[in-house]
């Protein structure tokens, strides 16, 4: 279900989260490494890392918000499907390039995510073209979820 809130955005929606991701070496593809104060934040950061590989974020404005849902059978599947839904949001109508992601439901028992995606339609000319992401992979995927060390990290290889 997409809900478009043109003008319905509130001030807080324009606060840009800090960058907590990096790109690691892989021969043919790229490995996303994201982290956060919670696993939920690490997931959000991982999604933003993927979008930042497609364009330069400085050129992206928050103009609309769409909501996506992802469901899976296990935690790795959830990360995979979450990213796949985001890629789909970019690849078809509304062609959304996201600057900010806020997961509103993060259920690690039934493996379900609901996420608000803030950004605008990708426009050649306005947004510099980066690299195209073909697919998300399970290749060397790692999810580090260690509350006692306050350590939350994810590693995902995207096929480009």
């Amino acid at each position: 279900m997409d809900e478009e809130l043109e003008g319905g955005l509130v001030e807080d929606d324009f606060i840009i989260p800090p960058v907590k991701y990096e790109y690691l070496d892989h021969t043919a593809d790229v490995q996303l490494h994201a982290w956060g104060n919670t696993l939920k934040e690490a997931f959000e950061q991982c999604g933003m890392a993927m979008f930042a590989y497609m364009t330069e974020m400085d050129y992206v404005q928050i103009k609309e918000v769409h909501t996506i849902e992802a469901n899976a059978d296990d935690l790795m599947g959830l990360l995979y499907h979450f990213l796949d839904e985001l890629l789909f949001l970019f690849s078809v109508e509304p062609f959304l390039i996201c600057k900010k992601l806020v997961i509103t439901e993060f259920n690690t028992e039934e493996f379900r995510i609901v996420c608000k995606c803030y950004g605008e339609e990708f426009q050649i000319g306005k947004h510099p073209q980066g690299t195209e992401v073909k697919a998300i992979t399970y290749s060397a995927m790692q999810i580090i979820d260690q509350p006692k060390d306050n350590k939350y990290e994810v590693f995902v290889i995207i096929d480009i």
Partner: protein
Amino acid sequence: MVVRQYNEELKYLEKINPYCWKIKKGFQPNMNVEGVFYVNNTLEKLMLDELRNSCRPGMTGGFLPGVKQIANVAALPGIVGKSVGLPDVHSGYGFAIGNMAAFDTSDPTSIVSPGGVGFDINCGVRLLRTNLHEKDVQPIKEQLAQSLFDHIPVGVGSKGIIPMNARDLEEALEMGMDWSLREGYVWAEDKEHCEEYGRMLNADPSKVSLRAKKRGLPQLGTLGAGNHYAEIQVVDEIYDKFAAGKMGLERLGQVVVMIHSGSRGFGHQVATDALVQMEKAMKRDQIAVNDRQLACARINSVEGQNYLKSMAAAANFAWVNRSSMTFLTRQAFGKQFKMAPDDLDMHVIYDVSHNVAKIEEHVIDGKLKTLLVHRKGSTRAFPPHHPLIPVDYQLTGQPVLIGGSMGTCSYVLTGTHQGMTETFGSTCHGAGRALSRAKSRRNLDYKEVLVKLEEMGISIRVASPKLVMEEAPESYKNVTDVVNTCHAAGISKKTVKLRPIAVIKG
């Protein structure tokens, strides 16, 4: 994965001639057949370095080296002959890139694997010739490059300009290049010079998810990003005058256009969907593999058949895609030279697929067998007189198109009888990456890369100039090493060398 010291690992590898290494059984668990890979001295070093790096103790977040992946493929059910690594081999998803493997369709346990095809189904190369000479193009080279760039949508987020609705897409998926012909985008003779005549007959669009179709629709007739490109090239060297003549390449300096692209988001989604389905099928049929990424299903299972039918639809999408760009290229040339594309003799020399699985007949131990041949980053290279190659090339062998990295040369090869017996009629597909993208970004400067191309006299139009270093020649293996290895090993034969004068890319 078996963890051993590097010198222990080397005991399983044996150099059987200057261009070929054998991977013995036991290198990875459960190998049904041996592995083999083709390298010269330079490429051998890259291959073994990759293995040595993976043997370091305490490695985390790493990935399997290509040589291990070739061995894991040799452990898949139903594999026959050998698991083959071509000279441009490097680590990929499940299968190595530059890996081919054939499975006996009469064995009920034989499998099909989307990882053995790749995400970009029917990614391939098409070569168009012209009757122009380099000196005809030089004065208007910049305008021509710009015109090509303006005609062909390139780069991430670009949308196709060929009018297309959901119903057209269904027809295109089923008909492949027959659709392009019916709609007037290609010439009838283009089909003749295409693998499968540009249409896989077992395509079934009803097996394809709505998600894939939605991703495919806006992207039909787009080049894509990454290593995809359109290049204006000139004939630089002719090694085999007869074969080159059959392709209409008669003289040095003759201008040709090379298009390297695939099935775009459509194929990527078909592969993604199939991987999810196959995880389930593997559990049900208790198919054991060495690496979770080698998701596969029995050829005769519902999942296996559904994948082959939707893969065929994606292959058709890719042919329509390359055909649409052929149309746009002809338009751009026609406008610049104020001549009809016919009068410029802009025929398709050939169109190869280097990410695909096909049912083919091969002779094994003196018996004719029907096999499912996976080629991932590997090009079919059928010998002279093979029934599946066009009449025009019956005497030369199938043309094999090898695209180089940006700014380096490309090659046209032909298939050989030795290749037919040794590698199921398969050869390399390109340069193959040597540096990771992240490392290229760190070590190279995009401005220097662009200046260097300019100094070489190459016009460049690129959608994302700041990423151009990822595709710089330094990031790749040397395509000449790769091609020379194939030639020396006898699995294909050098025919023509091409040099770029203009590059259009994402």
